């Protein structure tokens, strides 16, 4: 039997020290909604579990001086939803985080865990990619930052180095008339893993899109930043032609697989459909605000 040790450090330095020392046998515990499933099914037998929820920075939601947000990696979806302002500024990120599992799961699951789990279908990731989130990482060699889209390396893998822990997400300040949205396709209304997920963040001026970012999930080994789709939207009034072009860019970016959740043909087509719908919602939100 493998001995398992559970550690719940109260500082980040302690956590990094313990995590790095334990090497590949160690796992970070945030909400645990993926980790415990993997442990119970026997896929994973960790030697050390480092619970990061006692570290204040990991569970904090902060408005930064420049008007952005810093979200601790272990903040649960439910806690994020209870924040007075976050959901007004980043409704798409919030809806994405709160599509992870059931209400029960939302009480535990975090965007940090969703990202580090490395699933191409994680709901929060395309929305974070669209939002242009930057993650802060701390490891034995100190702190560094990365674009969120650079974190996933493939199914179940990230570009975090051994001993590194994801600390927080930094979301940039929002210009006026900006908003975002996230939609996913699932066969049921709830409780499924995204077959396709699409996040769109955009800024409007006089009905024209002035900037846009598009994140696409579950259609490739990692969540994609689809720059061609964003380009198609920028400068347009989200007319049918622009939406069709952006949708085509999303479909073109897909490198999906056939699996129990969807087919290649289905995912490719749906990626475009979702782009149109998500961009439309984001634009409505951006313009409603003014």
């Amino acid at each position: 039997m493998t001995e398992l040790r559970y550690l719940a450090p109260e500082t980040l330095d302690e956590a990094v020290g313990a995590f790095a020392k334990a090497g590949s046998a160690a796992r970070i515990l945030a909400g645990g909604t993926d980790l415990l499933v993997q442990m119970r099914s026997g896929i994973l037998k960790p030697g050390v579990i480092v619970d990061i929820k006692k570290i204040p920075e990991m569970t904090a939601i902060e408005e930064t001086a420049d008007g952005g947000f810093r979200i601790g990696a272990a903040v649960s979806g439910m806690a994020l939803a209870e924040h007075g302002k976050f959901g007004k500024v980043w409704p798409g990120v919030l809806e994405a985080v709160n599509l992870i599992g059931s209400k029960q799961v939302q009480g535990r699951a975090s965007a940090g865990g969703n990202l580090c789990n490395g699933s191409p279908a994680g709901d929060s990731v395309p929305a974070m990619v669209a939002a242009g989130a930057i993650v802060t990482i701390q490891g034995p060699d100190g702190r560094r930052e990365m674009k969120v889209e650079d974190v996933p390396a493939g199914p179940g893998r990230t570009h975090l180095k051994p001993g590194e822990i994801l600390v927080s997400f930094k979301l940039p300040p929002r210009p006026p008339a900006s908003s975002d949205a996230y939609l996913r396709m699932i066969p049921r209304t709830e409780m499924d893993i995204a077959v396709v997920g699409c996040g769109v963040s955009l800024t409007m001026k006089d009905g024209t899109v002035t900037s846009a970012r598009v994140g696409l999930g579950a259609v490739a080994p990692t969540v994609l930043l689809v720059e061609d789709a964003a380009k198609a939207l920028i400068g347009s009034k989200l007319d049918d032609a622009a939406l069709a072009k952006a949708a085509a860019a999303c479909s073109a970016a897909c490198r999906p697989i056939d699996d129990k959740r969807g087919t290649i043909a289905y995912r490719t087509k749906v990626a475009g459909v979702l782009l149109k719908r998500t961009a439309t919602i984001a634009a409505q939100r951006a313009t409603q605000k003014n």
Partner: protein
Amino acid sequence: MAKVHVTTTINGEPMEFLCEPNDTMLDALRGPLGLTGSKEGCASGDCGACSITLDDRLVCSCLMLAVESEGHEIRTIEGMAQGDRLHPLQQKFLEMAALQCGICTSGMLVASDALLKKNPDPTEEEVRFWLAGNLCRCTGYDKIVRAVMETAAEMRAQ
């Protein structure tokens, strides 16, 4: 394997127990704590039969390590009635035939209670989406949703 000593509060009572570090809260509840009202239907967070609250937040006890309860407050189905007085949801589930086999009932009640604490006046859609994490294979959910809505209405009227 050395067991871990955990001090926690369960249904308002201070409790201590020993567990393996990889035991889930559900293992601890059903094992050393003898609270078998929370059920294991899947052990993967997909059925909600093990629903409890952790510091008043609804969670699946199968997706939480028992050691994580140290210093926190857990509530389970066994703590829902006050002595011999049922919670209005429990009473309404009985009156409206909102249960059949009963395996999902504990989790369904704990989840419904968490909803009404947060939202005393939910729409049918809000009830349905809140309870989406609680599978029931017997009822088709109809009578459960009606019971939750009617309990909410009665509680608001009081």
